[in-house]
């Protein structure tokens, strides 16, 4: 059993950070610190001396980490950006999932790769969770729009609800658009009419 590695996690997304921490714990690693918007990343790295730093690609703190090995020559554990030339697929997957990793110089690449893969998987599943949530929110907004568009059509075309809905559906089919998009167009046009624009 290899020694557990000390991992510092820098991520503003509390849920995602917890997911990554749990998964890395199950692999036998120790997450020494989970940071949200660190006041001083430099101090945290000096205090906890992590072997690996996993950081959200979109974090504004990335430049601070990126420069640490170049600026702090006296720091006993300089961190370097993990970009293994032999593993372009892992690097591409990391970029797409939004994960980047910094490791202390001299760490075995295969161990870093295993950690990175765990983080990538959690980042990716968090992303799909969020996409699902956005979709659900979008559907809710669509339903509201469709109701509003139906109401406007009933008033302007002097028709019943069923006819108004069929009109929207036909427009959507003719234009190859989602019914929510068509509803938004209808609202736009009919509201302009009402305002006399």
């Amino acid at each position, binding site marked *: 059993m290899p020694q557990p590695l000390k991992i510092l996690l820098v991520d503003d997304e509390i849920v995602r950070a917890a997911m990554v921490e749990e998964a890395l714990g199950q692999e036998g690693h120790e997450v020494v610190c989970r940071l949200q918007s660190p*006041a*001083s990343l*430099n101090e945290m790295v000096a205090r906890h001396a992590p072997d690996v730093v996993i950081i959200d*690609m*979109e*974090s*504004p*703190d*990335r*430049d*601070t*980490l*990126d*420069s640490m090995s*170049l*600026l702090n*020559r006296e720091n006993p554990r300089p961190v370097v*950006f993990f*970009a293994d*030339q032999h593993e372009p697929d892992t*690097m*591409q997957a990391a*970029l*797409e999932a939004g994960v*980047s990793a910094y490791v202390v110089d001299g760490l075995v690449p295969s161990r870093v790769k295993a950690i990175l893969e765990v983080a990538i998987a959690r980042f990716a599943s968090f992303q799909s969770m969020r996409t699902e949530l956005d979709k659900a929110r979008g559907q809710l907004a669509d339903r509201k729009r469709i109701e509003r568009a139906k109401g406007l059509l009933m008033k302007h075309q002097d028709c019943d609800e069923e006819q108004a809905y069929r009109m929207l559906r036909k427009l959507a089919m003719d234009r190859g658009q989602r019914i929510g998009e068509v509803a938004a167009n209808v609202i736009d046009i009919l509201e302009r009419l009402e305002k006399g624009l």
Partner: protein
Amino acid sequence: MTASRTAGLERLTLGFIPLLDAALPIIAREGGFFAAEGLDVALSRENAWSTLRDKLAAGLLDGAHMLAPLPLAMSLGVSGAACETLAPLVLGRNGNTLVLSPHWSEGMPSPNADVPPGDAPDPGVSARDFARRLRHRGGPPPCLAMVHPFSCQHYQLREWLALGGIDADHEVKRVVLPPPRMAEALEEGRIDGFCVGEPWGSLAQHRGGGRIVASGAQLWPDHPEKVLGVTAAWAERHPATLAALIRALTGAAEWLGASPEHARQARDWLALPPYLDRAVNHLETLAPGTGPAQQRLGGDLRPCPEAMPPMAAHLDQALRAQGGRLDPARLSACYSPVHFDAATHQKRA
């Protein structure tokens, strides 16, 4: 914009960091200069230079607003994984300011007035003043921030310190922070000063959190500060697109310089939320060469390797510390005007 209007346009994504010298791509987009060249350009605001760098290298961005030394550092493999990168156009000159906290800058001369750089106080005066205070006060070394190790801000900070006889490696602590966080870190006392591009220096002074004591324009007058960066592989695959990009940005620069009204309009575009948002509230215009930073966002956009020695000397020094040296051929290849000349000499289609 409707689907039919974007149909037939080539889609591109350019990365930028919220700074005034991201103005030309923003003007080219908002003013229709990209569209006129057949390009539909999305501008992606990035939170860190290293992220922008890695996305460009991985092909997630087609091009980017970049610190002038960064394409060369990428090509040499000293910043991120090695990736041959070109700087086919200069996006801006000057714009950096050196800001110190009120505690350190009290009574120091400042290049604040709108006077030509030649008439501004000698930056050596504030540097020597800072050195005296540093040695007189003792205690822990002051902490000075800049935006990236491979940046003119870092190099200019080192040169200003050298004017005061201060050893940048031992007498001060240097840290890297993203530009939008500088003023806040200074106000909270986590850093004692910084060197940063506009609008962040003038904003810190405007908010009363710091004082501009020197400018990059005083140290390296009209030195290229930001460039357009593209990978060599991308430039090779898309020569016509690169030429269109160069012409659109050149068109935006000509428009910006054509009237004071345009400079005000450009400021309003930069104030839009996806770009710089409230960070430009304290500015009225983007007119060139105003204020202590003497920033030039238009003018001569042609890159030229002969204009890079101040920056190249620092990069060479950094390489020598690692046992290497800067090959002049690499410098010439990176900042070659060949793409710029080809694009601007072609007749517009």
